[in-house]
């Protein structure tokens, strides 16, 4: 990797807009999203839902037996922010835009966006549900206020 690709202007790791689809432990997450299914990891040993990012062993009982299971797609906003600056050119024409911490009803939390409403109408505790945003190579889970 050349220095220009890997670094931002201050020498830190350069930001990118796309997910790493090749991440071994996360492949089912991205594969299922292509079929518009939001899934999370659940331990077959103790039943615990894993936090993101995905990992091979359960953080509670260290069992390696787990599976990706569908979730309701419903959640609540733990916190949110509004970006007024773009750290990546892909977001330049989207500012001001929302980024939220979405606590899924099953427990795991995702970093995502609340769409369909202006950023200043997002609230802590707001009930939201998943919507699927299709890109050529992948599908991103985003959220809108629950009907």
């Amino acid at each position, binding site marked *: 990797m050349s220095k220009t690709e890997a670094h931002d202007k201050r020498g830190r790791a350069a930001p990118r807009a*796309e997910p790493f689809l090749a991440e071994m432990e996360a492949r089912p997450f991205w594969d299922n999203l292509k079929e518009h299914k939001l899934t999370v990891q659940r331990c077959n040993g103790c039943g615990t839902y894993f936090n993101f990012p995905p990992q091979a062993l359960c953080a509670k009982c260290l069992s390696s037996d787990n599976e990706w299971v569908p979730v309701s797609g419903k959640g609540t906003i733990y*916190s949110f922010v509004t970006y007024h600056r773009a750290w990546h050119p*892909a977001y330049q024409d989207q500012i001001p835009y929302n*980024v939220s*911490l979405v606590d899924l009803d099953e427990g795991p*939390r995702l970093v995502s*966006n609340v769409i369909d409403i202006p950023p200043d109408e997002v609230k802590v505790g707001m009930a939201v549900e998943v919507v699927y945003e299709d890109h050529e190579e992948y599908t991103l889970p985003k959220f809108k206020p629950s009907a």
Partner: protein
Amino acid sequence: MSNLSGKYAVVGVGETQVGKRPEATTNSLHVEAIRLCLEDAGVDASQVDGLLTNQPLTDAHRSYAVRLAHMAGIDPSYATDLALGGATPIAMIQNAVMAIEAGMANYVVCVHARKRATPDPTPGYPIRSGDEHWEQPWGHFSAVANHAFAATRHMHEFGTTSEDLGQIAVSTRKHACMNRNATMQKPMSIEDHQNSRLIVEPLHLFDCSLESDGGAALLVTSMERARDLPKRPVQVLGMGQHHPHSSVMDAPTLTTLGSRKSSEAAYRMAGLEPKDMDFAQFYDCFTITTLITIEDYGFCGKGEGKDFIKDGRIEVGGEIPVNTHGGLLSQAHLEGIMHVTEGVKQLRGNEVEPERQVQGAKAGVISGHGGSLCMHASLVLGVQ
């Protein structure tokens, strides 16, 4: 009180000029800080047998501590890089104490420098935080935004406002204006804070710390050895750490952080309480960090920070002066190592500008905070 409390001391501090240092490199700033520290301590590099560094974010060596030791004339029997973000400088002091207690070294230099205000053409590879690929596809990129999550949540739970956060920026700037080696020298008003542009709402530009060039170093040794050295030894009385989550995705809460348990451990080791502290140097990457830290360190109840910080209570002459050097917000952002050097200088009693000297300071508490609000280290320092 632990039997280690007071057994080891900081006997040397070095602070480079901060701000823009276009002539310097990350490496040269480290060595310059070490030289200043050893001159201050009256100790020769040949006597130093331990070196602790903060893994540089932009210039990763397999072991930066070993590389740096041999750039600074040090032949270490103990050397390693620590990687706890802004909690690293305090963790270095703690590890120095542990290494000396274990018999691995006698004089340990703790050093950190960074070059973020002007370019550093030194080749290297960047270091990642680790979870970026679970954040960036949704346009989430920055430390500002992770702390803005905490601010939104604190506002929701306790009614804290942006103006309240502004008070921290304003008080911190007052101290910077009394520090000749501070980047920002122009007083700030709440109105200036409110008029500064939004970066990631609810945080404005003036809620954010600086990008700086500079470095600092500290020398730790036993109290026994300290008595033969010229400067008044500043004792390590209490130490603590807590790292309660690893990213914003697994944080049980963003309004109480590792700062609570970490500070409790440090007070316990020191046998002291918040009311015994004459000052606090609290990591202030963003104003919200300072607010949460003031609450978690027991200076007021959870959610009461917004009222506590008013009326000059956190300024020199007030109940608990916070960031008497101007902090990361207004002095320089060197990942908090200057919070530690400032604490030492305040306790020596005659080394800072008189207008910001905390009169008769005997003990103070220092915090370090790193990562996505996930890492924390605490230090209680004091003089006899």
